[in-house]
Structures are given as structure tokens and as C-alpha cells.
């Protein structure tokens, strides 16, 4: 199954914020976590995560600090800021509204829809 480009783009911000809601993390781990959560269905082009993270940092939703990995490599960690928590809550409400609207339709509709 291929998830459409627009949907991938739209869901990227809430996904990243929600994953950081679980605790501070870094780029590679965030991508791994997304893939885990979606059973590998949601595939990002890895590099694209970084401009997104930087955008969130500029908006003040996340804060980045340089730290060290277990092997001693320089690594940039991100964590949510209070503004990010607030934004995540807003996103959550929006997605839940979309989700429940669709759910209502899915429920009333048999699997094979015919035109």
C-alpha cells in the first residue's frame, strides 16, 4: 500500500511531535519509531525529516541540543517545548475530528464500495 504524498506530508508534524512527546529523541530514532508504529507502511525519505525538525525548532515547538551517542558520536537531540506540547494538543484535536468523521462513514459502509 502506498500512502499518498500529501497525507505523508500532513501527518509528519503531528507524528514527530507525538514521538517527541514520549521523550527526547534524535532523527534516526524518530524514523525508526515511525516505521515501527506503521508496520513499515509509512516510509519517509529519511533526509526530509531534518528540514522538518529544523522548521519545528524555528517555530519554537522543539528544542535541539547537541549531545553524544552511546558510541561517543556527536548527535543532535530534540525535545518538546511547552509551545510544542500546546501545538501537539491542537493537532491531536484536529486529527481526532477527521478520524472520527471518517470512522463514522467507514462503519456505515460495507468494504466493497461500488460507484
Amino acid at each position: 500500500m502506498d500512502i499518498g504524498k500529501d497525507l505523508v506530508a500532513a501527518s509528519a508534524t503531528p507524528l514527530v511531535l507525538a514521538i517527541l512527546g514520549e521523550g527526547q529523541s534524535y532523527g534516526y530514532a524518530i524514523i525508526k519509531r515511525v516505521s515501527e508504529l506503521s508496520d513499515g507502511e509509512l516510509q519517509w525519505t529519511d533526509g526530509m525529516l531534518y528540514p522538518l525538525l529544523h522548521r519545528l525548532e524555528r517555530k519554537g515547538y522543539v528544542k535541539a541540543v547537541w549531545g553524544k551517542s552511546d558510541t561517543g558520536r556527536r548527535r543532535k537531540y530534540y525535545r518538546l517545548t511547552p509551545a510544542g506540547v500546546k501545538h501537539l494538543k491542537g493537532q491531536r484535536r484536529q486529527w481526532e475530528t477527521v478520524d472520527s468523521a471518517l470512522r463514522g462513514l467507514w462503519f456505515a459502509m460495507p468494504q466493497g464500495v461500488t460507484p
Partner: protein
Amino acid sequence: MNENSQLEQRIGQWRNYLRRRQAVDAVDVDELEDHLRSQIEALSESGLDEDEAFLVAVKRLGDLDSLSREFAREYSERLWKQLVIAPGAGGVSSPGFRDGMVAILLALAAAIAMRLPELFGRHLSDDASNSFYLRNVSLFVLPFLAAYFGWKRELKATRWLWLAAPFLAAALLMNGLPFKPGGHTEALSALHLPIALWLAVGFAYAGGHWRCHEQRMNYVRFSGEWLIYYALIALGGGVLMGFTAFLFQAIGLDPEVLLSEWIMPCGAAGAFLIAAWLVESKQSVIENMAPVLTRIFTPLFALLLLLFVGTMIWTGNALDVGRELLIGFDLLLVLVLALLLYSISARDPKAPPSHFDRLQLALVLSALLVDVMALWAISARIVEFGFSPNKVAALGENIILLVNLGWAAVLYLRFLTGRIPFAALERWQTGYVPVYMIWAWIVVAIFPLIFGFR
């Protein structure tokens, strides 16, 4: 181990490749590298060998064009090349920061040198000191510029001596010769000394390798950019002075002394160093401006000159031979030479002849034509009224420039017909530089003797 270093090498290449993208910062590359390495480790653990792991990891990061486009969207300011001089990136010990500190200290020293004569009773505001300042002003500033490049190019001790020689000679000449205050020869010497010393600074700029053709061309490029930066700084300085006047007048004080004795002379002196430092540090960061201006003004000046010749023939009006005419035509030739020089300095010597080259030739030829007409008119006047220092100097300069441009036109013609490579034109120009220097020294040192210091 061997395989590992091969991987390191490939990661290094990848880094360099990514680093070339303007929108991607070194810090971003670090972050992406951490990602790449994590991915390679994970893939290696799952059984891929390092080569495959590297390829897969790079592929997953995505194609670099769209990645850098995405970065560019987030960091649009990075596409405007910034000439940042903040110590942030390299810290206090970085070469860039040290360079800036030296430049600022030397600029301060030049500013102090401007004010130093006040201690010895030579007041800038005093009309009696005009002659002293006129003769010595380039000695207050240019030695510091020479010192800056001497320091920057790490000149050897013997070369420092060579560098100091023209400045010492100039100091002795300007203050030892019995100039008549306000005389023509004094003004001429004072006017030509900066030219002579500017070329001496070129010795330091080239790190002592002043015979080297490429170094001379680099100094020509530097001079053009320096002039543009200086003009920009002067523009800013004008605004600063305007506000100084406005603010102090607003509280009923007269800022005249502050402006004309402190801000103006010290600023003008310090800006010499600051402009030089900016040109040095922006090299290869920002496009050179002089060749861009050349591109804009070469066709316009060619058009102007042709229009002028056409009008003169059409109306039959002769040149009005006045006092300033010769100097005006000298300046015109200097301008044409500058247009020629900066288009040469920016041109790829291996490129075939283009329309712009033909345009350049048209400009040079029309300038020569106009100048020959002017020379014809002026010679008659000189024959009638005899020689004066000013006329001889202006005439000498005209001939020097005429010879340069005349031979440049011949070379251009031969280049356009495919008989010689473009490099010959460059060599002619860089080889001609000593002629300017020798002439400048002649006017500085010999003219006063010939014309009896009048």
C-alpha cells in the same frame, strides 16, 4: 580496518558533496552524517556488508537535490551568501577572527596616525598646515595597508625591508625637498604619491612575488573590489556624519570640529584597512562586483564615445581647448582602461572570442580616436604657450595610456582573428604595470627638481 577506512573515505566524499550545497550548513551535514552512520550500523548488523550498507543508507536519505531544496525552503537566508564576521563559527582563535582583529587594530593605528601631527603643532584646521597634510596624507595610511598584507602573507625579514624602502624614500622626499607651499609640483607630487605607494602595497599583497603575472592580476582584481567597498563604506560614513550633525545641532552644539577633524579624517583612514580586510575575507564568498559593473558600462561608454565622434563630425564643432581638457581626456582613458582591465580580469582566458570582445574593441578604438583628436588640439597649445609641470604630467600620462590602449587594440584585433590566445592581452596589461609605477615616481621625485619646485 582497511575496509573501515574505505568507508570513512566514502563518508568523507559524501560530506564534501553535500557541503557544496549552499543551503546545507556544516552543522546540518554533521547531523545528517550521524543519521547516515546510524543507518549503516543498523544495516550492517542485519547482514549487509559495508559497501551495500553505505549505498542503501545514502539512497534512503533521499536525492540530494530535493533534500537541499527542502533545506533551502527552510533557510532561504542561506541562499544570500552572508559575509558573516561574527566570531561564533570559529571562536576567538580562528584565523578569520585574528585577521579581523589585526585589520581593526591597524585601522585604529591609521586613524591615530592621522591625528598624530596635531601633537606637533600641525593642526588640520590650520591653513598653514595644508601643505604638510597634502604631502603626507598617503604616508599616514598606506604603510598600514602594506603592513597588513605583509603580516597576512607572512613576509620574510628581507622582504619587509624591501617593502619599507619606498615608504621611507617617500617620507624623505616629501619632507626633505624644498617644495614651495601651494606650488604646482607639490600638488603633482602629492597626487602621484598614492599611486606609487599603492603599487608598493601590491608588493606586500603579492607576498613579495611581484614579478608573478597571476599575482599582479590578483592585485588588479583586489584594487577594483577595494574601490567598490571603499565607496560603499564612504557612503555609510556620509550618513553617519549627516546624523552626527543633525543630532548635535538638535541640542544646540556645533559639530563642525568633531566632524571635520575627527570623524572624517579618522574614518577615511581607517576605512582603507577595513575595506581591504573585507575584500580579503569575502574573496570566493561573494561574486566580484567590478566585472559586473564593467559589463553594464562597457556598452554604454562605447555608445557615448561613438555618439560623441558622430556629433563632432556632424556639427563640425572643434574641441574647445581649455585648461582642464587634457586632464579630462586622461581620466577618460583611465576609465576605458579600467573597463578593459576588469573585463580581462574576469574573463576565462580559454573562451573563444565573443560579441563582448568585439564591443570592447569598439570601445577602445573610439576612445583612441577621441583622444588623438584631443592630443592634436592640445599640442598646438603647448607649442604656443610652452611647458608647465601640469601640462607635462598630463601629457605624459596621456601618452602612457595611449600606448597601452593602442597596443591593446592591436592585440584585441589579433585575438579576434584567432592569431593569438587571450592570455597575450592579460600579459600585456600585467606587464605594463611597472610603467605606471615608474612614471608615478618620476612625477613625485624628478618633476620638482626639473621644474625648480614651482
